[in-house]
């Protein structure tokens, strides 16, 4: 089977991390985002990445993963952004080949990708398309999907409902018969707003409810929330992958090459990347520390993303979704509250209120 991953543009919502590398290569829980999707796509032999920009790093990473996973990965390059449906038209030839159903997924989404179950569900109902839906607590913030309880057939979509009609939203993971390609032209098109309503009206679109967690991690705040969910799922399924020992609280993922000093308290919900050095007496909770960063002694971090090769000084306090881009240096004894720091900056003054440091 084939899969199309909608990577899209520069991932501006996840800046400053995406200033240093393409979003699919940003590590989420110590694994590139793209790999979470590729590795879950069992039975998929050919993956097409729909990108609207070119990146050498992405090309190189794809070649490496082709070898490692033994699948084919191609790029479908949009000259202009084509929205969420246009890329299907652009990759028409690749997707239609073989006449089989194919998967489409949003690259910002993290969940326990139920590819096999979705394919089974799709075969069973025989319609043209299936989409995965997930329950949310506050449906009024989203566009919701109204479907028949027994069959899953979608009746309609309601954008930001003011009265309760459904608590299920589109999870950004689909499977379609090649026939859908006849509905889509090569121009900027929204699959959610232009293609799905027509399919639903014809009774060709079905919803499968997702089991387990789901998060759109396109923004730093949600990236951290998604990390908490992912680590919780890991606790349930592969507890041996989580770190344990003195000073470790709750779900903590630590790369084996990372070093953690004495008298630290790490967790809950912390991911520490490869080659990271955490010196003595550091307190970290609800953070992702990316590859090669160093956290100097007695610092305190909560709800932060520390970029690749950053250096966070002694007695630094960082909180409130502070995000450090690649190779940022934070001097000793500073306080960063919701700072968004672009790559290669050296911070010499506290940031007491949320702000972008150019």
């Amino acid at each position, binding site marked *: 089977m084939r899969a199309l991953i909608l990577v899209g543009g520069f991932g501006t919502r996840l800046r400053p991390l995406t200033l240093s590398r393409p979003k699919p290569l940003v590590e989420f829980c110590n694994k590139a985002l793209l790999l979470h999707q590729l590795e879950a796509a069992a039975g998929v032999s050919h993956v097409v990445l729909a990108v609207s920009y070119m990146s050498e790093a992405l090309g190189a990473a794809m070649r490496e993963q082709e070898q490692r996973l033994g699948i084919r990965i191609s790029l479908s390059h949009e000259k202009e952004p084509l929205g969420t449906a246009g890329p299907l038209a652009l990759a028409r030839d690749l997707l239609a080949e073989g006449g089989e159903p194919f998967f489409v997924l949003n690259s910002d989404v993290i969940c326990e990708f139920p590819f096999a179950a979705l394919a089974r569900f799709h075969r069973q109902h025989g319609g043209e398309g299936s989409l995965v839906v997930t329950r949310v607590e506050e449906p009024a913030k989203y566009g919701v999907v109204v479907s028949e309880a027994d069959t899953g057939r979608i009746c309609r979509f309601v954008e930001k409902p003011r009265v309760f009609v459904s608590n299920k939203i589109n999870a950004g993971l689909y499977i379609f018969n090649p026939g859908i390609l006849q509905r889509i032209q090569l121009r900027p098109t929204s699959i959610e707003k232009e293609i799905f309503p027509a399919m639903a009206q014809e009774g060709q679109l079905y919803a499968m409810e997702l089991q387990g967690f789901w998060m759109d991690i396109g923004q730093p705040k949600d990236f951290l929330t998604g990390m908490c969910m992912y680590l919780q799922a890991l606790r349930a399924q592969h507890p041996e992958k989580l770190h344990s020992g003195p000073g470790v609280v709750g779900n903590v993922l630590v790369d084996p090459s990372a070093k953690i000093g004495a008298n630290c308290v790490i967790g809950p919900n912390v991911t520490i990347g490869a080659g990271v050095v955490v010196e003595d007496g550091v307190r970290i909770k609800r953070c992702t520390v990316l590859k090669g960063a160093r956290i100097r002694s*007695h610092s*305190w971090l909560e709800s932060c993303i520390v970029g690749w090769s950053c250096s966070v000084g002694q*007695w630094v*306090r960082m909180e409130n979704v502070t995000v450090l881009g690649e190779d940022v240096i934070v001097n000793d*004894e500073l306080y960063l509250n919701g700072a968004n720091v672009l790559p290669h900056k050296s911070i010499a003054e506290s940031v*007491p209120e949320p702000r972008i440091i150019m």
Partner: protein
Amino acid sequence: MPLKAVILIGGPQKGTRFRPLSFEVPKPLFPVAGVPMVQHHIEACAKVPGMKEILLMGFYQPHEALSRFLVSAQQEFKIPIRYLQEYAALGTGGGIYHFRDQILSGGAEAFFVLNADVCSEFPLQEMLEFRQQHGDAHSFVILGTTANRTQALNYGCIVANADTQEVLRHYVEKPSTFVSEIINCGIYLFTPAIFQHIGEVFQRNQQELVLEESSNGWQRAEVIRLEQDVFTALAGSGKLYVYKTDGFWSQIKSAGSAIYASRLYLNQYSKSHPERLAQNKPGGPIIRGNVYIHPTASIDSTAVLGPNVSIGEGVTVGAGVRVRESIVLHGASLHDHTCVLNTIVGWDSTIGRWARVEGTPSDPNPNDPYAKIDSETLFRDGRLTPSITILGCSVTIPAEVVILNSIVLPHKELSRSYKNQIIL
């Protein structure tokens, strides 16, 4: 020559800008660079040859802490030290006038008057020598220093003859427009003749009060302010001189200025009291710059202190603690990994591990050699001005929170982070 010194310590109604710290201890006893504020004055006075007695004057009720301090200071400096309690707030001139017999007893030929709420090098000997060189035996000397043009307006401004340093035409307290860059340091050298001048003001006050039918009950003839009532009249009479010092000087009005004053005194210790400055020693904490540590304090060897830190009696400082530009008062406890910056930590307060307690310094402009510390207002445009953080006594700060630019009144147990707030 027999000399005396009077230190004006004010009373409990004064020093409100020093709250909440002045709730616990009279402001003159607040430790600056490890010793009570007025001990710096006493030490300077005791060093002057001929000093017979030091008198603290104010309107505090007899106070246990004050008495204890007087006893220990007498022993340490081997000089009689007494407290003279005014029956009411009599002003800087009224107090010394009321106690003039006490001041002159024993045949004092001259005496110093020092305000307690200043920190200075106290060039008292130099003031004496200056008087001998200039003027006659009965002249009075004000210690003056240079301020910048805008800040001078907050002080008593002195216009002096450039050659003789005689206070010429003018002495104005806190003028509204620029008068002079030379300001009054609140440290004076008088001869007994000053009492004639104060007496004249007293007589005039009495007459005026009799004339005024609608005499308010609270207005007293005895309330006399040296600066406004006496110096202004003496200016241009050939009796008042200013001795200008280039040594350090600052007012200690607000708690924020106590940290600045501590820095000035700690800096002086490297010359005057090197034994009071902590050194880097094997097994001891890491010391950066000037730090005072009371011998009874227990400091973990991994703590990093300084510059400008004073650690009081019985304080406990845990592993990996960082303290900079702060005063930690006796009995306080800083748990592991805490970070304390620009803060006064009150007596017996506790800071939980990984907590950060931080204030904003109100230091004078470092690029202006004549800049003074601004007597900052608590509020500006309805918002608390960022200033040093003050924890009153017995305040408990939980682990891992941040307390920023806040004032915490005594005996509070906080449960979360606070920023830019007064916590009642």
